């Protein structure tokens, strides 16, 4: 190696690819997945000394092995999907919204408030509409704040949105003390457990039918908005270059604020889907890191809302599956986080190899 070091040319050179065919890109992705599964297998064998194939069967079993597990996977994937979809407009504009957690929490808090205070005064369908509107507004406000500061004072939106997460967390903590049941327990418990007021009602006999409809509708709308509307085009231009946008006569301030309002509103709506459509309670863990996982989903999907369906399904599939193998083999659930972590690492890694290519120095063969 010391001989190589003398050479000015590096052993490997990284350069950006001009373009890559879809076939090749997907080839790299599948190779990444296959590699990650192999590494996961090695880790599992090291920990439990168990046949990795049986472990993978456990993953499949845990994610879709029973009707209810299947639906839990669907429910969690939908939740992740709508958050990723919510982040898309902002990210496409290169506005780094790390504040989805906070926007979800605000939407969730408002949803809980509606359930608690309006549970008895209006019919369920009306309450649900009120919840959708109110939670979107809460998320919208939480997104508007950093957008205004970014547009007018050019503040750092990454830090601003991140910090707002902690503010949202404190607001939730405060509300829990306000609503806690029983007093002093620090939990709100299931809201309207007896009456199910404000809960998503069954549709077509499916418990998560309404989740599916709302999330897929939002996904489709955002997809069309981004791809086929003038505003969606403006977002893309602002994301490419604010100067170009200004030159083209686009009001950049307006686009930033409008786009973040949309982004925040969708994330706020996600809060209502978690609280009203799944957990029926509010706690500081309501967002549960999903606001960050969704960033990965959005990136991996290249900000294409339709691709996000697949990516979020896959991630949740692996998460649910690894929870199962943790209990099946008496592992701590941290073991399942390791597996999901390895997987995400390889998936992000394969995106790198799609954007960049490695040129190995030809001479290296002679050295070997």
């Amino acid at each position, binding site marked *: 190696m010391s001989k190589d070091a003398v050479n000015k040319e590096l052993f490997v050179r990284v350069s950006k690819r001009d373009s890559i065919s879809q076939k090749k890109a997907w080839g790299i992705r599948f190779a990444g997945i296959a590699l990650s599964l192999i590494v996961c297998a090695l880790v599992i064998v090291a920990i439990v000394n168990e046949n990795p194939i049986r472990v993978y069967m456990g993953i499949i079993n845990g994610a879709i092995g029973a009707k209810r597990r299947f639906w839990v996977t669907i429910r969690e994937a939908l939740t992740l999907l709508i958050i990723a979809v919510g982040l898309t407009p902002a990210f496409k504009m290169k506005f780094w919204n790390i504040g989805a957690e906070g926007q979800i929490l605000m939407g969730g808090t408002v949803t809980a408030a509606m359930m608690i205070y309006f549970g008895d005064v209006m019919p369920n369908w009306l309450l649900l509409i009120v919840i959708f509107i109110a939670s979107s507004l809460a998320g919208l406000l939480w997104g508007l704040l950093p957008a205004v500061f970014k547009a007018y004072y050019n503040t750092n939106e990454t830090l601003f949105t991140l910090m707002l997460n902690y503010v949202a967390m404190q607001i939730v903590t405060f509300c829990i003390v306000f609503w806690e049941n029983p007093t002093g327990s*620090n939990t709100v418990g299931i809201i309207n457990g007896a009456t199910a007021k404000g809960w998503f009602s069954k549709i077509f006999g499916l418990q998560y039918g309404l989740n599916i409809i709302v999330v897929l509708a939002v996904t489709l709308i955002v997809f069309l908005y981004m791809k086929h509307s003038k505003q969606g085009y403006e977002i893309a231009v602002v994301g490419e270059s604010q100067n170009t946008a200004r030159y083209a006569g686009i009001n950049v301030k307006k686009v930033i604020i409008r786009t973040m309002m949309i982004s925040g509103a969708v994330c706020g709506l996600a809060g209502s889907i978690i609280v009203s459509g799944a957990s029926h309670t509010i706690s500081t863990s309501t967002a549960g890191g999903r606001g960050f996982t969704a960033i990965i989903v959005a990136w991996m999907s290249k900000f294409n809302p339709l691709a996000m369906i697949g990516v979020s399904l896959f991630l949740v599939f692996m998460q649910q599956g690894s929870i199962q193998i943790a209990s099946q083999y008496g592992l701590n659930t941290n073991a399942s986080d390791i597996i999901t972590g390895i997987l995400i690492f390889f998936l992000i890694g394969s995106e790198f190899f799609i954007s960049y290519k490695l040129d190995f120095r030809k001479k290296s063969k002679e050295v070997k």
Partner: protein
Amino acid sequence: MKKVVTLLLVLAMTVGLFTGCGSSNKGGNADNTPAAPSGTETDSEAIPEGSAADIKVGIIYIGDENEGYTAAHMEGIKVMATSLGLSSDQVIEKTHIGEDESAYDAIVDLAEQGCNIVFANSFGHEDYMIQAAQEFTDVQFAHATGFQAASSGLPNMHNYFTAVYESRYVSGVVAGLKLNDMITKGEITAEEAKMGYVGAYPYAEVVSGFTAFYLGAKSVCPSVTMEVQYTNSWADMTAENEVAKQLIANGAKLISQHADTTGAPTAAEDAKVPVVGYNVDMTLVAPNTALTSATINWGPYYTYAVKSVIDGTAIAADWSKGYVDGAVAISPINESVAAEGTADKVAEVEAALKAGTLKVFDTSTFTVNGSTLEELIASNADYEKYSANVSDGYFHESEVISSPAFGIIIDGITEK
């Protein structure tokens, strides 16, 4: 080209392996049996009486083995499995189950895997367990620290806890003797005998615990006082450490805790202040200051509940047992730190608790704002709710429902 070929090979291998496994799966492997995608609730529900071979036990934990409270539960499950001769695949454990819909998912998943009885160990799991109990009427559900089993009216929903106030009282006696020792040696004056208590939440479970601890100390050291501060978390090592330091700065000469981590004992060890722990023996982290810990043995309950399912007998809606049933204890006394003669006094107190001659919440031993509890119940509407608990000169803790009910701040204890 090579890449494509490798890729194809990998894919082919993966597919081959999966299908290969699929067929071996039908062989009826123990680990894979829970799969049963159809016919979810039908099989193995009706267990023949007296047969432990077909029974399946499920449990969800809020934490894992690294956290004292859950570790104690895991130990109890182990004791149960050993004493009833259950094999490892008859017990399904799920760790790190939060207090949200994931608790419901986990509980239902266990029921669908064919568990005959499902346990949950955290307060916030209760609502979700009740929801599951309404759906799976053939499965028994038992929830630790909860309070709604009896009022829910569900025959398959149960609450359990232990009379840990008894072991807290005993650990309080150990603390009181240590304070006496310090007073006799002239290290502190009788008036300076102040204890600090790191509490989780201002909630009956915690208040009941620290009151019992204080009464134990007071029974041997009459001048003792106590300051309580809360961390507002069950397990937050940093906060517990900080609060303990604050208490020591406020003049506490001895520290105790109702919080799950080793944060407080570590702070006490650093400050060379004696400390009484909770859940687990703290001598590992505080070898020079830890006196003892109030501990809970969950084994008796888990054995009782699972045995009841095997025998086909009913499980009590509320279960709370103490010294008599071996459900509570204190960890071995650290002789190098504790006052001389502690072991003898502890044995005496424990015998009195077992015999029932000593009541922890004896109303003649404490006052609230200068009045006795009986006087307050008669005169003050705020205390009326305790009327069902107080009779025969003592507060009947954990007898009406299994979870602690004593939520009164008595004289001598200050809260922050």
